[in-house]
């Protein structure tokens, strides 16, 4: 806090400090409780249990593939929204945001309706090629991409918009076409924002639960990601659920550390 500012404005009022403190307690108490519940003695052997390693490997694999898909599909869409003026752009932007606010279970039901064995797209796919998506690792990736893509598109669009349009104009005057400008000017300048968007999308994909368990099922090694393993473990062995949760907590903190420069640092 800036010292001279607090001198002129006086002390922060209690009626703001108290709710602010309560908010901190509400956010931190469950996480502290989680750490305190951890079975520290048996932690090392639990961490290397095959189910835990299976779920961790699957989670990292699927979240990474989903992030790459988000980059391949989301970056062009974000560029379109940020750089091309077209009728209905605001409608498209609103539609992209829908999965952001959709309860994940609803996303799972919607994915079943589209890509299930008898889905609008899944049915014909099965008839023509004998491919069935539910209960496969591909279904997990699809669910994660569906929920993570809006995060990626919206944050990359923001990063692209933050670039001064004059760079594009100058490049165009110098004879670059739009593909070259995208590749050699926009993406390099927006790269930190693009990376931040991807990390955010990766974290969202890693935490995906509702759509995955509804659409992809729950089987160790093929579709049981970390959050599903936490939920399954909670039914029989709450200690195991705490251990799995701790791993996810550590990963989340690592993601925050990666993003620290952008969110917590002063440089904007």
């Amino acid at each position, binding site marked *: 806090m800036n010292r001279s500012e607090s001198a002129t404005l006086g002390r922060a009022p209690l009626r703001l400090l108290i709710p602010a403190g309560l908010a901190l307690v509400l956010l931190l108490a469950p996480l502290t409780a989680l750490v305190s519940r951890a079975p520290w003695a048996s932690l090392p052997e639990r961490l290397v249990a095959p189910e835990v390693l299976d779920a961790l490997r699957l989670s990292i694999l699927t979240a990474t593939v989903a992030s790459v898909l988000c980059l391949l599909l989301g970056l062009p869409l974000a560029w379109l929204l940020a750089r091309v003026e077209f009728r209905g752009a605001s409608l498209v932007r609103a539609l992209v945001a829908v999965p952001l606010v959709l309860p994940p279970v609803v996303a799972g039901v919607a994915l079943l309706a589209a890509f299930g064995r*008898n889905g609008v797209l899944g049915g014909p796919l099965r008839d023509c090629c004998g491919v069935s998506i539910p209960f496969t690792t591909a279904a997990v990736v699809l669910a994660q991409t569906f929920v993570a893509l809006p995060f990626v598109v919206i944050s990359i669009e923001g990063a692209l918009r933050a670039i001064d349009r004059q760079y594009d104009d100058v490049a165009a005057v110098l004879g670059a076409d739009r593909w070259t400008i995208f590749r050699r000017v926009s993406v390099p300048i927006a790269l930190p924002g693009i990376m931040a968007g991807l990390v955010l999308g990766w974290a969202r994909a890693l935490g995906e639960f509702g759509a995955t368990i509804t659409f992809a099922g729950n089987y160790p090694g093929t579709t049981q990601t970390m959050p599903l393993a936490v939920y399954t473990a909670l*039914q029989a062995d709450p200690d195991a659920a705490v251990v799995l949760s701790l791993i996810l907590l550590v990963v989340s903190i690592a993601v925050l550390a990666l993003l620290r420069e952008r969110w917590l640092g002063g440089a904007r």
Partner: protein
Amino acid sequence: MRTVVALLVCLTLASCTTGADGSDQETLTVLAAASLTESFTELEQEFEADLGSVDVRLAFDSSATLAQQVIEGAPADVLATADERTMRTAVDADVVDGSPEIFATNELVLVVPAENPAGIEQFTDLDDPDVDYVACAESAPCGAAARTLLEANRIGSEPKSLEVDVKAVLSKVALDEADAGLVYATDAVAAGDRVKAISVPQSDTAVNRYPIAVPTGSGHPELAEEWIELVLSDRGQALLGDNGFGSPG
């Protein structure tokens, strides 16, 4: 704004008073496993019709959750769980009276979607590599029973998904996302014609027995005993049988 609040308070108080006026009406709180939903709801009507001045409040949840609630002192007059293991946690914690009585049994059946896309005729068809079937995770009672029966019938193929509860297995089959699933006989009855049930050989080796007991904290132990009598009576047993339960006798 003040008037609205005052009005609301008055209304709430008024409804409380009417409730208190009928103070000769006793409330019996029954905590029961989710699979008992249909049967106990029907029994509630019979019980209230028989006794007139009794209001039965039913709460359904997973057996482990209910047993935990009773241990933690939730108000309950009757506890009915879907397996003996969960009831034992309540007995061990000294929160139920006497020894629980077994009032029903439930066995696993194989259900297939109404149209039976994989053409499954019998349990051993699960071994066909083209058949995608689902079952409960082994942490759930239905998963442990499924594992026993798959091994007893030497089914080598693995389920495509291990769902956390039996209703999730049922919905995967009813939605025709899976070719088959292992659920309780009562679930197959509750699903009606959305699924077809196929019996499982040796299903009698993995039977869930449903115990019922009166928690020590019950405010109406005599009334609770009457509820248990109804459940164990010929009438109660016939009703449970109609919903797919087996008789303990």
